[in-house]
């Protein structure tokens, strides 16, 4: 892992990996959504509204994956002082927040015809809303601490680790508490879904995950380029400034 700590090596890899992830992800997700929308069957009880699952589940997974990424990068930053870890955490925040918001909105649009209501304050929906607020808080803290202390501030990393406690709460909320939301249909190694629903869902999840990875790499490249430009301009200003007390 420390081999990738070198920003030059990271950029060499990201230059070809980022467009590959985005290109393959967009094509795969587009094909899976078209499959889900036009080819996959309607469900016996929910009818056509079940098609929202092909967007809602990948968005829910990536909303949680974004925070898992922030927590993992925060741990790496605090323990090994990996120079790219803080940048990776910042790059995960926006796509994680966007997918969390997409999950909440598509869930609400699914809830209205399926449950007869846009929103219920049950464990799953509330903990997902808390995740969105955690993203907003983390982004504000990260921006404020960078402006005040540069890259040295550890507050966002600690917040990233503490906030990870919400991830198992989201996952187990439908098991721990009575919930309007259904229990997980897919667990490791088994699925309660028929293949005609499962395959487009798995392919959509793969496609959106690749898009997420491409966006994270693009944002990391952008943050790194910003830092390099700042450092170069600062060095130039210092070199051009007259030295005080010199004759």
């Amino acid at each position, binding site marked *: 892992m420390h081999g990738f700590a070198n920003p030059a090596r990271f950029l060499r890899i990201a230059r070809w990996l980022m467009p590959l992830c*985005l290109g393959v992800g*967009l094509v795969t*997700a587009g094909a899976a*959504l078209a499959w889900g*929308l036009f080819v996959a069957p309607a469900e016996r009880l929910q*009818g*056509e*509204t079940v*098609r*929202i699952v092909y*967007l*809602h589940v990948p*968005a829910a997974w990536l909303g949680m994956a974004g925070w898992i990424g922030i927590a993992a990068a925060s741990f790496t930053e605090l323990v090994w002082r990996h120079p790219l870890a803080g940048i990776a955490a910042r790059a995960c925040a*926006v*796509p994680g927040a*966007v997918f969390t*918001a*997409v999950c909440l*909105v*598509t869930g609400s*649009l*699914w809830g*209205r*015809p399926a449950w*007869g209501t846009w929103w219920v304050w049950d464990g799953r929906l509330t903990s997902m809303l808390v995740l969105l607020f955690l993203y907003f808080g983390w982004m504000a803290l990260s921006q404020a601490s960078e402006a005040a202390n540069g890259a040295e501030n550890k507050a966002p990393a600690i917040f990233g680790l503490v906030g990870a406690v919400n991830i198992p709460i989201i996952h187990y909320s439908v098991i721990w508490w009575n919930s309007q939301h259904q229990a997980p249909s897919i667990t490791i190694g088994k699925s309660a879904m028929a293949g005609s629903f499962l395959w487009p869902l798995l392919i959509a999840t793969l496609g*959106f995950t690749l*898009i997420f990875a*491409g*966006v994270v790499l*693009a*944002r990391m*490249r*952008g*943050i790194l*380029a*910003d830092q*390099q*430009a700042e450092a*170069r*301009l600062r060095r*130039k200003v210092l070199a051009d400034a007259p030295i005080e007390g010199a004759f």
Partner: protein
Amino acid sequence: MREAMDPWTFVIAAYAIGIGATLAMVAWSLLTMLRAEKRRDEARKR
């Protein structure tokens, strides 16, 4: 009694919001990256 609702309205709204948000995020991230890399290259040339 629940009123009759057209399920396709909800499906299309969900797809429009999901796809629109994803594409906007991809475009914004790429533009931000390209702008930052251009700024870095200009700083190198000075």
